[in-house]
């Protein structure tokens, strides 16, 4: 469970941990209730000639997958489900109708939720209720994903049972912000789902509306040698610290945190978060000269083996030295040297020779503000604002900075104005003054 003292609830390495069998809804027989033959011959309730075309081709077909769930639900029967067994049939039907009409068939908006919270559920109703009654409601539940989207199958199977019993059985793994998305349920199931999630799965819901949205992170130190701070731990700590801001909208508009371990930005923080935390270092790149020679000698494949095209032998001058954006590198035929004070830590040489070069050892993060999509004042990439901060648990200095930002923006931001637009309107200089930046 996320809650204190429950950090090991699902840990299979810890005695007495919770398992799928402790919370399951469906029996093994119910889960394996159809054959491949039945699936092959399955005809949905509605004819879907256009969607059927999307079952062809090699890429995993979402149509084939929805059909599988439709069959499974039909065979489970209405007695074993809390919302219509035929919801997936009607989902296929309404999407087929959209394909025919070239327009969406979801009504505008929808305000639903759970008591105590102001966000987390996106309401949705279709505009052809008579024709598709089983999908009259089709609300989305956002569930806060664990760090870097790691799961045990015990937990995931429990999640699946809730989705199927109280929802459509369809999901998104994952929403772009990071949440696990339960796609499609009825209003009367929102509270029961919330109780199941918090009591049995030990997980909370994510954010929506004018609030802190669900933070997300790259895989960081769990499986990456480039990570300059503990993205997963910090993402978790910041999510827990700002639970109130996440669940109860109090902001002018949405606000997102994203945590990238290095400037490669695998979670896209620089483009997709209002406050981007990007790992960096302030000492020297660590060089293993023997490994450099092994790259030059062709013993180690370039860029971790990412290149299958025929590029010829590795040419360190052409591929590394000449590509360096600050021209701060030199190769004299025997030794690689880097003029580190001139390096801007773009990651190219490290990405290209990961077995020879390592990020520095004196690590922290940069903070950039204000990335957003185009509406209203144009798209923005995040602005480098704080060059370096140490990111050591419990991250007090960073949390204090965040509180300063929230306090100011809640006061200063206009209705539906992203912080990037507020900064643009009041000037970056003013924002720097607010943060106490000289």
């Amino acid at each position, binding site marked *: 469970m*996320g*809650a204190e003292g*429950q950090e090991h609830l699902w840990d299979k390495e810890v005695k007495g941990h919770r398992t799928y069998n402790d919370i*399951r809804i469906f029996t093994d027989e119910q*889960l394996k209730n159809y054959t491949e033959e039945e699936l092959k011959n399955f005809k949905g309730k509605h004819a879907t000639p*256009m*969607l059927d075309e999307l*079952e062809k081709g*090699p*890429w995993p*077909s*979402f149509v*084939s*997958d929805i059909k599988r*769930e439709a069959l499974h639900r039909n065979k489970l029967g209405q007695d074993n489900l*809390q919302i219509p067994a035929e919801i997936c049939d009607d989902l296929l039907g309404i999407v087929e109708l959209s*394909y025919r009409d*070239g327009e*969406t*068939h*979801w*009504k505008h908006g929808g305000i639903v939720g759970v008591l105590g919270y102001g966000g987390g559920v996106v309401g949705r109703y279709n505009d052809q209720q008579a024709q598709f009654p089983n999908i009259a409601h089709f609300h989305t539940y956002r569930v806060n994903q664990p760090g*870097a*989207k*790691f799961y*045990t*199958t015990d*937990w995931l*199977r429990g999640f*699946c*049972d809730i989705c199927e019993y109280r929802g459509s*059985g*369809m999901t998104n*793994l994952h929403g*772009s912000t990071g949440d696990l998305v339960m796609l499609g349920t009825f209003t*009367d199931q929102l509270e*029961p789902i919330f*109780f*199941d999630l*918090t009591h*049995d799965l030990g997980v909370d819901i994510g954010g929506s509306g004018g609030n802190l949205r669900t933070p997300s992170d790259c*895989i960081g*130190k769990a499986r990456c040698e480039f990570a300059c701070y*503990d993205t*997963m731990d910090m993402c*978790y700590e910041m999510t827990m610290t700002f*639970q109130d801001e996440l669940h109860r909208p109090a902001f002018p508009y949405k606000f997102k945190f994203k945590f990238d371990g290095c400037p490669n*930005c695998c979670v*896209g923080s620089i483009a*997709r978060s209002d406050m981007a935390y990007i790992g960096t270092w302030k000492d020297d790149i660590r060089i293993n000269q023997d490994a450099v020679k092994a790259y030059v000698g062709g013993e180690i494949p370039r860029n971790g*083996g990412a290149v*299958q*095209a025929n590029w010829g032998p590795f040419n360190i001058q*052409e*591929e590394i030295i000449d590509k360096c*954006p600050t021209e701060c590198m030199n190769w004299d035929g025997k030794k690689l040297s880097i003029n580190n004070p001139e390096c801007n830590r*773009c990651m190219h040489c490290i990405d290209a020779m990961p077995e020879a070069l390592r990020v520095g050892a004196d690590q922290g993060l940069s903070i950039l503000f204000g990335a957003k*999509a185009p*509406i209203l004042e144009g*798209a923005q990439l995040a602005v480098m604002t704080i060059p370096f901060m140490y990111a050591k648990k419990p991250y007090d200095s960073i949390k204090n900075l965040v509180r300063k930002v929230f306090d100011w923006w809640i006061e200063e931001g206009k209705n539906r104005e992203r912080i990037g637009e507020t900064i643009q309107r009041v000037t970056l200089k003013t924002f720097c003054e607010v943060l106490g930046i000289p």
Partner: protein
Amino acid sequence: MSKGKLGYFDPKKPQENRITDIGPNRFEQMMPPVLRKNYGKWLSHRILEPGLLMHVSETGDKVYTVRAAAPRTLSVEYIREVCSIADKFCNGYVRWTTRNNIEFIMDNEKAARDLKKELDSTKYPAGSYKFPTGGTGFGITSIVHTQGWIHCHTPATDASGPVKATADVLFDYFKSMKLPAKLRIALACCLNMCGAVHCSDIALLGYHRKPPTIDHEVLGKVCEIPLVIAACPLYAIKPYTTPEGTKSVTVNQEKCMYCGNCYTMCMALPLADAEGDGIAILVGGKISNRITTPKFSKVIIPWLPNNRPRWPEVTNVVKKIVEVYAKDANKYERLGDWAGRIGWEKFFEKTGIPFTEKSMDDYRLAVDTFRTTTQFKFTEHAWAVSKAVGGI
């Protein structure tokens, strides 16, 4: 888990037994033990073949990751099948990536290769692969995308359908690593751009071409008019009172560029239209700071039709762009860096995409995007301009 209509929830005592603010599950408990043991101790990695990664720790441990595509919109039956595979090969652990691929992580190379074979042989009865492996290195990985007609009320196109059609056409690039650099494709079904469209190598964007229709009778009742007016980036919306005295708004059709933001704020201003709606193509964005700084994608094709169910006009042009880029770009060069180096006039010429005035920025800071230098390359388009004004 609870059963019955209300489960654990008692509507007569709604606050009783309610647990709140517990956040996500703590991540360590979900991580394979080999990752917990080597947390923060990684030294380097290699891609052994498309879809198979190896990470090496300072403890000497190695972990193998098999990456497989998933369609993002998943049934629980799909997830359960993933769980069965993870139980069989990975002791019950699995993860998803930031681009919605699935990763199976284990400490045994042979098991990883066996798993890869199994994943690559699993198909739906209709023929598509369930978990094709790939998506690593300098190729094309999964397409980040949105809700489309499956769940959203403001889209100008579908998401899952065009993504499936495009990924089918580019399947070989998912299974291989033969491009000059990685190439990221994203789709958003309207210009709210949920996701990564504004910063992707190739972006598909749902786009309207007609102004909203106005339901004067209900607008004042269901919409907060000042919010509607403030929602317009071009100040095309004004308050209006009908002859019958009903409060509403007008939309100046000459000023409207069909962004749809007023509809987001007000249900009485729908603008979806089967003939008008379609997909714009943008290229050249990136997020990483590698060599060059992050970049926005630029509009190169203003509109292609929503030709259901397979969007052939869209998939053809995406394939063409990828092929020309693959042939022409330098080592490590992302698509936007390549287009910038050869010059955008050459990008249009080499890809055979006609340049139209729709690619010329006309929004506020547009002047920064104009060419204020004599540096250009002669293209057919340049000659056409010179001819048109009687220069040649």
